[in-house]
């Protein structure tokens, strides 16, 4: 009896597309960038950055292509406030788009 040919399984790519795009565009990874900035900022404020479920639960990843000066401003603002860039973007969005 001959064995029936089975269709080869769909192969997963070995990379995370969002991470590749982010690294390609900026030379930095999302995890390093956000985490390092937030940790450094929290440390500067004498505290420890809040992590875990309360921060990341129900969050959706989003890649953005921004001008370098905007990224620098977001980074500086996150550092000044001891927050992550994600939190700064969220707050700005609430503030400026929440009214409409």
């Amino acid at each position: 009896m001959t064995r029936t040919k089975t269709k080869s399984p769909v192969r997963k790519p070995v990379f995370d597309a969002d991470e590749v795009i982010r690294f390609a565009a900026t030379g930095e990874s999302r995890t390093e960038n956000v985490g390092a900035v937030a940790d450094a900022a929290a440390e500067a404020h004498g505290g420890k950055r809040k992590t875990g479920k309360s921060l990341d639960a129900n969050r959706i990843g989003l890649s953005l292509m921004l001008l370098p000066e905007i990224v620098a401003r977001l980074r500086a603002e996150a550092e000044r406030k001891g927050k992550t860039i994600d939190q700064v973007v969220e707050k700005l969005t609430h503030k400026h788009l929440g009214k409409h």
Partner: protein
Amino acid sequence: MTQIVGVVQVKGGVGRSTIATNLAAIFSLKKPTALIDCDLPQGTSASWFAVRKLTRPSTGNLTLATARDYRELVVRARDLAAEHQYLIIDAPPRIAEMTRAIVIMSTLSLVPLGASAAEIWSTADLLPTISAAHQHRPDIDVRIVWNRFRGYTREALEISEAARKELGMGELMTRLGYRVAYSEDLARGLSVDEWQDRTAHGEIMTLAAEVMGILKEKRT
């Protein structure tokens, strides 16, 4: 799992397309393989594939794709991964988003290098990108492939030794010599294993076997 081999080098004319096309042709004899030409509009690998299609009834397990920017590359690679065991990427000759994307997404990146000062300088320009990629993904593997290597000359041996110290990168054991077969097979849409130069044939088959061996180790 699909495995990706990126062929990257900042300098032009170092043999990226020669290595990419030959590996793609030989890999496709074993498993479905896609060759992605990112060096547009030059498109040497794409031209090679077009000639190949004209001169043979079937291209077998080999597929060609092109990508004009890194976003298109990511989409293409993701789509091709569904049907192909190997993706071979021919990178453009510059450090930009595309090269960063290729280094970070490749299972193995090959850096063709001739034993000349100019090529070693250009490879040094690639080091910060490799370092940044390594911080992001510690398991990236980037290795030099010596190309057009004249091992019988003292200059080649001295420069390659200096490059080893200067660049601090791993390298493949296989070295490709300075042979007419490599440029002629490209123009004819052939891979060197289909051409008559037995020495070149041996070099390319050894290179393909070494690369496959590395990829196999990474699968386990």
